[in-house]
């Protein structure tokens, strides 16, 4: 991973997003300022309709802000054209979605290899060991050459995580990554996130409405009605990491906003 030297992985400055439908303009996001440093582990929470998915799409360069600027690893991505954004997504970001969004026509290993193939333009044998290693890391060695159709929901989500990690992104964006899983599978997915975070210092932004899950992150950003209403660090010791619901967090511990 390139040395970022304290440059935030992500920096949003006065970002707003309007949706225009006929004459009606709906402001979904209002004047959002947000900095995420390299290696942070952030939960983005809020009730449904609060704009958190919209915010995630903006951060993921899948959508354009109406006003404000978005910088990714120090590069201003606001005005990039489609090609530039596509490249940046490929190099700097990893995506994990609620409904895993794998390519059903491919095997687990091929799915994981896709971001590398998109970067080089070729499906290369040389990329296979890396994909295999990641599948081993998520505990799916035996499913390497199995079509993802034949995997359970939890297994598919782990393939998606391996895929999100394969191009060594600086930031992984996860949209309700455990929303579709039972408690056990969800826990396993979350532990994988924490492990990769610890091992590779990848920053994570996890959108969730599961408060318990959020409390197990290091920082919680809460959005209501398109505004950041709270932004705080979570302090938890090693022991309580497994049982995040017991961690008491003071509301006053707000993260300094830039």
């Amino acid at each position: 991973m390139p040395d970022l030297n304290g440059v935030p992985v992500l920096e949003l400055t006065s970002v707003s997003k309007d949706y225009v439908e006929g004459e009606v303009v709906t402001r979904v996001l209002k004047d959002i300022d947000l900095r995420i440093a390299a290696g942070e582990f952030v939960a983005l929470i809020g009730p449904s309709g609060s704009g958190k998915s919209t915010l995630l799409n903006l951060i993921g360069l899948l959508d354009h802000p109406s006003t404000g600027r978005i910088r990714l690893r120090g590069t201003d991505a606001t005005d990039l054209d489609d090609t530039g954004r596509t490249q940046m997504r490929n190099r700097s970001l990893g995506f994990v979605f609620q409904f895993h969004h794998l390519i059903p026509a491919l095997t687990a290993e091929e799915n994981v290899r896709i971001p590398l193939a998109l970067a080089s333009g070729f499906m290369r044998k040389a990329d296979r060991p890396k994909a295999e290693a990641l599948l081993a890391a998520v505990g799916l060695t035996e499913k390497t050459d199995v079509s993802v159709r034949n995997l359970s929901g939890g297994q598919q989500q782990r393939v998606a995580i391996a895929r999100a990690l394969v191009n060594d992104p600086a930031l992984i964006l996860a949209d309700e990554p455990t929303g579709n899983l039972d408690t056990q599978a969800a826990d396993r997915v979350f532990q994988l996130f924490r492990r990769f975070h610890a091992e590779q210092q990848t920053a994570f932004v996890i959108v969730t409405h599961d408060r318990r899950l959020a409390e197990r992150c290091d920082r919680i950003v809460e959005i209501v009605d398109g505004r950041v209403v709270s932004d705080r660090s979570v302090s938890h010791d090693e022991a309580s990491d497994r049982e995040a619901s017991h961690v008491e967090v003071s509301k006053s511990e707000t993260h300094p906003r830039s």
Partner: protein
Amino acid sequence: MPIEFFLALRFLRDGRAQTLLIIVGASIGVAVIVFLSALISGLEVRLISQTLGTQAHVVVRPEEEEARPLRAPDEGEVIVAMIERPPQRNRSIAGWPRRLREIERIAGISAVSPSVSGPAFAVRGMASRSVILLGVEPARFDRIYAVQRHMVRGRYLPSGTEVVIGIELADDLGVGVGDRLRIQPAEGRSETFSIGGIFDLGNREVNRRWALVSMRAAQTLLDQVGGITNIDVRVDDVFDADRAALEITSRTGLPAESWMAANPQLNIALGSQRSSSWVIEFFVILAVALGIASVLVVSVVQRGRQIGILRAMGCSRARIQRVFLVQGTVVGLSGSILGSAMGGALALSFSSLFLNPDRTPMFAIVLGLDRFAMAAGVATLVGLLAAIAPARRASSLDPAEAIRNA
């Protein structure tokens, strides 16, 4: 493997039933085109060879005789003249050896045969028949009419005292090889020839009317010593005859008539046959294109979510487009390979199934490699073109929306 091909092939493999269906559809289209064009060109070749078997591709004749006013008008004078077309005498082509060489030099001309011809009677005892007396250079004449190949009795190559006649004329007069036959032109002297051979050129009129003798004998009999009255020309490509005729006229100034001009009704029949087959082929191609396009559009809709995630992972619009263009091309190509085989097999079985009483195929079939190549090329191109709209649609999907609408 380029990622576009990899994804395209996997998508096709994944949509087995759809892929199979559309490839079969494209194959049937290609098969129809191959079969139809084999049949039509077989028919065409047969029609042309039947017509042109006993006809030169281009016939060059002497300049026509024209009537000229005796006196040019003086200044301020108007002469009212009625100019009648004079009867055309059987005339020789002036300076023919030079003109023959000029014609031989024109590109696309494969054989040239000078001949002298005129009306005559073939007389045997009390019976006489009107014939066309043809004085020919046997080798040159044979390269146009292939008489040698169609000899039924005796031998071709009329020597100075021999005549070669058609089978109908021999029957009419009750003569055989070695019998003597008197040839009497409409005007002038007559001469007796021995029958050297009898041919069957497959055309009743020709078999009844042609009497082939040596050039010199005919020149003497027809009072055209040293002269010729026709130059018959064969061209490499029969459909090139019009151009060849034009070029002959422009180079030599002699009137030249192509077989198309001589047989306008045949030419029209061939043309309408060809254009009707084009119309059918066009609609078949259209149906194949629509089929491929609709299957790909459905595939784009079905894979909307996957396209969205591919875009999110860093797949450019152009690359998404190419994935679908490759799919269309692969479908077209597979369809064309399968279809060519099907069409070829169909054409061959068709021609061996429907036989004339004499066991020859009722339908002539022309299966050229070029036809397969053309059908294959067209189908592949159609696949590519049919994929353009679906590919555009796929590439214009908004990734955020595509993912959200899971």
